[in-house]
């Protein structure tokens, strides 16, 4: 697409301001820069406009305008994504949903809530908390990330081990399709007739349209919660404990692993009570009925001990539990204590392959002269190796990218996946052939064409393509919301 002329931009700006008001359109390059990347600051691209609709009608009008002009558009929530999924790769329009952030309705009897896409994930749990409910998917960026963004990425979080990811909690979506038509997919009742368009839309990374209303399940808060910290002198012991707990028929709500390098960073930054000399720690949470909880916790403790844990203890109270979770959820921010920059990877492996793959990850990093910290959802086999580096050292960033690709290749080789929750976006589009055949990708492309025949809705994502339109590097910069301390990388 040829770039828009200044005159064209001016007239489009006027038209969009008439719709959204003066404050509803950004087009000054300085203002646009805030939106040039998401949480993965390795990639940047400038839009021509960032716009702030207040209603589904606004969104539909903007999408129709984009179609009329033939300009690409992409929806954006809080911009906490970690794969470049909401980047405007070819100029055009960024449609920010941040002004559509209301809880529209809560039906406690039927245990559903209807929300707008710009609602911050945690704010939904806050809204329904007083009635004893919560929204289960809990990405670590949940203080900042939006439900609409969660829909795009099918986001997970620590507690998805027991409760499932976003797609397991969404019943219906009001959607502006890529041609501007407003339709409902699914609804408030289950088992909508026809193809499972909701299931298809969730996780489509913004390429099937823009959700403007979302019907989610809300869950009753569990009666009881128990949090156990198990400390190991060897990483392999911790990995084996994960399998042992599963093998004993337990389904913890969460089972997270934190390695030594990460523990040191966390303790330097926050002092959360993790032992600095441990090779690895497991943070294990059980929830559910109070009856039998002690017996289950005992089974967990015993499994950890049998695998060689040197210390296993339960959080004594809510304060200690909160502190342990703070250490886990803030780990990414804490890497700043031990490294000027890091790149977070996201791969999935069968959990029984943990010891082997963690060994390979360390070997790959070492071969590239890099250090790696691991903090991840061990129960799901969802790895987050964080490669530490110094962007001021020439060539180091290229080595990080190369090591990242090799790590994902290992995940694929053991039967895993190249993304557990961060999505493919721009970052991993070229890695898709690691796990999908040409026929698989062709089928996905056909489904995409059914939703998005003109290809204007978030182009250049997911499918292998060249990245010529996107600036890579030159150096890591913290995302604005990270600087404000609103979010951590996960």
């Amino acid at each position: 697409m040829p770039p828009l002329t200044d005159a064209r931009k001016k007239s489009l700006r006027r038209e969009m301001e008439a719709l959204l008001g003066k404050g509803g359109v950004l087009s000054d390059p300085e203002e646009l820069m805030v939106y040039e990347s998401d949480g993965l600051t390795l990639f940047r691209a400038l839009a021509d406009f960032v716009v702030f609709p207040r209603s589904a009608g606004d969104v539909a009008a903007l999408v129709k305008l984009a179609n009329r002009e033939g300009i690409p558009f992409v929806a954006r929530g809080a911009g906490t994504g970690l794969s470049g999924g909401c980047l405007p790769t070819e100029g055009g329009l960024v449609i920010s949903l941040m002004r559509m952030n209301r809880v529209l309705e809560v039906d406690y009897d039927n245990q559903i809530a209807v929300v707008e896409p710009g609602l911050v994930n945690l704010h939904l749990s806050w809204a329904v908390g007083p009635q004893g409910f919560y929204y289960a998917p809990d990405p670590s960026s949940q203080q900042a990330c939006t439900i609409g963004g969660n829909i795009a990425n099918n986001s997970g979080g620590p507690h998805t081990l027991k409760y499932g990811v976003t797609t397991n909690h969404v019943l219906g979506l009001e959607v502006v399709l890529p041609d501007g038509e407003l339709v409902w997919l699914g609804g408030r009742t289950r088992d909508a007739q026809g193809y499972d368009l909701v299931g298809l839309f969730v996780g489509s990374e913004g390429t099937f349209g823009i959700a403007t209303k979302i019907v989610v399940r809300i869950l009753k808060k569990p009666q009881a919660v128990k949090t156990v910290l198990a400390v190991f002198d060897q990483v392999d012991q911790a990995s084996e404990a994960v399998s042992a707990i599963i093998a004993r028929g337990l389904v913890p709500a969460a089972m997270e692993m934190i390695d030594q390098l990460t523990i040191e960073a966390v303790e330097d930054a926050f002092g959360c009570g993790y032992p600095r000399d441990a090779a690895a720690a497991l943070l294990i949470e059980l929830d559910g009925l109070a009856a039998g909880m002690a017996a289950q916790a005992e089974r967990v403790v015993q499994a950890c001990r049998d695998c060689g844990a040197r210390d296993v203890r339960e959080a004594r109270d809510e304060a200690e539990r909160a502190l342990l979770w703070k250490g886990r959820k803030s780990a990414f921010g804490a890497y700043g204590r031990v490294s000027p920059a890091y790149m977070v990877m996201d791969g999935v492996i069968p959990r029984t392959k943990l010891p082997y793959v963690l060994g390979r990850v360390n070997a790959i990093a070492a071969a590239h002269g890099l250090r790696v910290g691991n903090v991840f959802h061990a129960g799901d086999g969802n790895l987050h190796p964080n490669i530490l580096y110094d962007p001021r050292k020439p060539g180091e960033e290229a080595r990080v990218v190369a090591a990242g690709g090799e790590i994902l290749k290992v995940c694929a080789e053991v039967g895993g996946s190249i993304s557990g929750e961060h999505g493919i976006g721009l970052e991993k589009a070229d890695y898709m052939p690691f796990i999908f055949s040409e026929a698989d990708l062709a089928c996905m492309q056909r489904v995409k064409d059914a939703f998005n025949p003109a290809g204007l809705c978030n182009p250049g994502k997911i499918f292998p393509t060249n990245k010529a339109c996107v600036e890579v590097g030159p150096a890591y910069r913290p995302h604005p919301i990270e600087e404000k301390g609103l979010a951590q990388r996960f």
Partner: protein
Amino acid sequence: MPSALPDQLRRIVGAPHVLTGVECSPYVVEGRTPEAVVFPGSQEEVAAAVTLAAEQGLPVTPWGGGTKMWVGAPPSRIGLVLATKRLDRILEHEPGDLTVTVEAGLTFDRLQAELGQRGQWLSLDPPASDRATIGGILASDASGPRRHLYGTARDLVIGLTVIGADGRAVRGGGKVVKNVAGYDLPKLYIGSFGTLGIVVEATFRLRPRADVDRLVVARFDRLADAGQGARAVLGSDLIPSALELADGEALRRLGLGGAAALLLGLDGIAPQVDWQVDELERLLKSRGVVDQRVLDGDAREETWRALGALGRPGADTVAAVMRWALLPMQTAELMEAGAAAARRHGMGAAMTAHAGVGIVTAVLSGSADPGPVSATLEEWRSLVTAARGHAMVSWAPLAVKERVAVWDAPGPTLRLMRSIKERLDPRGILNPGRFVGGI
């Protein structure tokens, strides 16, 4: 050249695995007899058979255990029935990963028995599980009472392989429990009734088997009271794996008696189950409960099995079966209204519901005269539509299907569904005519 078809198929799968002529009679679909039935022994043979059919523009109807071939609109055309029963292997079960990969023709009970030996289970309880195959269960998105806690196939499938209309294998998802790489194609194929591809392989997430599993039957004098009981359970700390609401006629057929009841599945470790049984009693005491009893062992299994069988044709008295999707709190009221409507048409009705998720199975009985049967089904659909729910005829004789649409009138999303269908099956050979909007 149609006459060459059987020979061509025999070359692909071997002579013993092709049926023609009168041999096809057990594979008649809604009164239509296929030209041939083929039993491929491998995914490659499925692919070759579909490719052959595609070349000839011949429709392909997948057939698993044949337990749900009466679901959907009658096929617009029929050519080749592709039976998956020879694809019946468990390909991979790694207990430590809590995942299993199986071929589509494996029957559900056989898989469950194998998993049970390793202390695990696939947390799905579809009807007719002794004959129903994995592929058929996925294609029809079959589920049972335990979906209340454990969800349906869409929550349990982590990877799926289908043979598409062009004969090529397409895989979506993978073998790990968490995966957001690429579009979630398994969701598209689950519940698509074979109209987009033929399921040949699936990978599931599993759960450890519970130490203790009980079925609690709490009986009430009135269905409305049982409905309020369900509401109380949903608002409590209880975590039942199943929460079923049954009316008097359903209870009579189950041999349980009474005017209305809640049936709860409670599983877990012993202290959890014991506490919940006591808590349930406390909770329902002030809500008009008549009695509460706990079933275990064979009695428990037989009751669950019979409950699943209620909504299946076979018994002479079943005239039609409808499935409603409602909000959970609407179920009791609509069940009563539906039964009253049936009586007005001189018919009987037995109703059960997955009360926590709002799915009602409404079984119409009495006269086989298509007049009153159709009239009742239409009235049921009106009731459900007025409540902003959905209704589908899950079984009815052909004479009734000629009068009453199987599916609700599709809304504006039909355009999207057709667009997907046209792109994945441009010649319309995969199970044509059975699905929503004539897809």
